[in-house]
């Protein structure tokens, strides 16, 4: 079953059989999207517990969307999930929780290049949450300015400027290692 099929065949129903189908369809979506989405939440929030919570909440909201919103292709689904996750992150910051508490326990021991890895984490820690989001969406997820604008609710022009600033700050931090 492709991701597009899963999304198209995703009717809400109370019957047990169709629920089983729902879960199978959801599994395809989850397998393809959960890992990158979780990495995004983890790097932007900096806390594993927060990333876990928000990932669950993101999929709960995704599953409880209205029937009329169910016809989505793969790109739209991905974009929709990132939009929910981004809104949830923003809600967390607004509710006064720490924006980035570096959670050293959330990662296993580093095998390859510990110095480089620590530098990326420190670089992210030094950036503002918005900058972290933009850098991750642009450079890891490869999203265009228009896609990022849809996800974050900012204008494409603002994204361009904010991303340029974030990239320069990030590059400056990486160069000083």
């Amino acid at each position, binding site marked *: 079953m492709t991701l597009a099929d899963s999304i198209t065949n995703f009717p809400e129903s109370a019957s047990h059989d169709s629920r089983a189908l729902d*879960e199978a369809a*959801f*599994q395809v979506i*989850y*397998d393809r999207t*959960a*890992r*990158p*989405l*979780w*990495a995004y939440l*983890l*790097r932007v929030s900096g806390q*594993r517990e927060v*990333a*876990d919570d928000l*990932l*669950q909440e993101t*999929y*709960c909201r995704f*599953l*409880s969307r209205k029937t009329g919103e169910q016809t989505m292709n793969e790109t739209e689904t991905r974009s929709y999930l990132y939009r929910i996750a981004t809104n949830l992150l923003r809600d967390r910051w607004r509710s006064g929780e720490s924006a980035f508490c570096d959670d050293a326990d*959330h*990662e*296993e021991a*580093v095998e*390859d290049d510990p110095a*480089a*890895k620590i*530098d*990326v*984490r420190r*670089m992210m820690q030094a950036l503002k949450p918005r900058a972290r989001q933009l*850098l*991750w969406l*642009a*450079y*890891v997820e*490869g999203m265009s300015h228009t896609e990022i604008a849809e996800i974050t609710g900012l204008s494409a022009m603002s994204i*361009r*400027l904010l991303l*340029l*600033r974030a*990239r*320069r700050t*990030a*590059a400056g931090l*990486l*160069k000083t290692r």
Partner: protein
Amino acid sequence: MNTMRCKYESETMRALYTGAPSNALIEHQKNCTDCRETVLVAEALRQDASDLASRNTPPSLAVVWAEAERHRQMAALARATRFLNILKIAGVVYGVVFIFWALYSLAAHGLTMPGLDVRSSNAVIEGAGLAMLFIGSGLWYTLRRDERLTN
């Protein structure tokens, strides 16, 4: 700050994904600070993302599905009890209106209490009614708050 974006930046990003930069692009990157920064930051972040993905696992599907089911059930319960909540609010409104109507009726019929004239009796009844209203609303708020805290 110069906010002009290098026209090769998109091409640089594409090359990072495909892993095949053209010779012209490599030459350009040597002289373009923007593109060099893009490569530096993008490579560092993508390496980090790759490390994260290989070393950590997100919550299992079963956990997320169970949580989603719980949300669905709570939403269904909220929908089912919506009518009861409307009835509760209507009951409170009815109670308040009834108290005021009763006070008005008693005052209109000139009910007197032993040792008091009509005006004093009305004032006592109104005071008692308002006290009951305030105590009732205070209790209701306190019980609701307790209910929220225990949930």
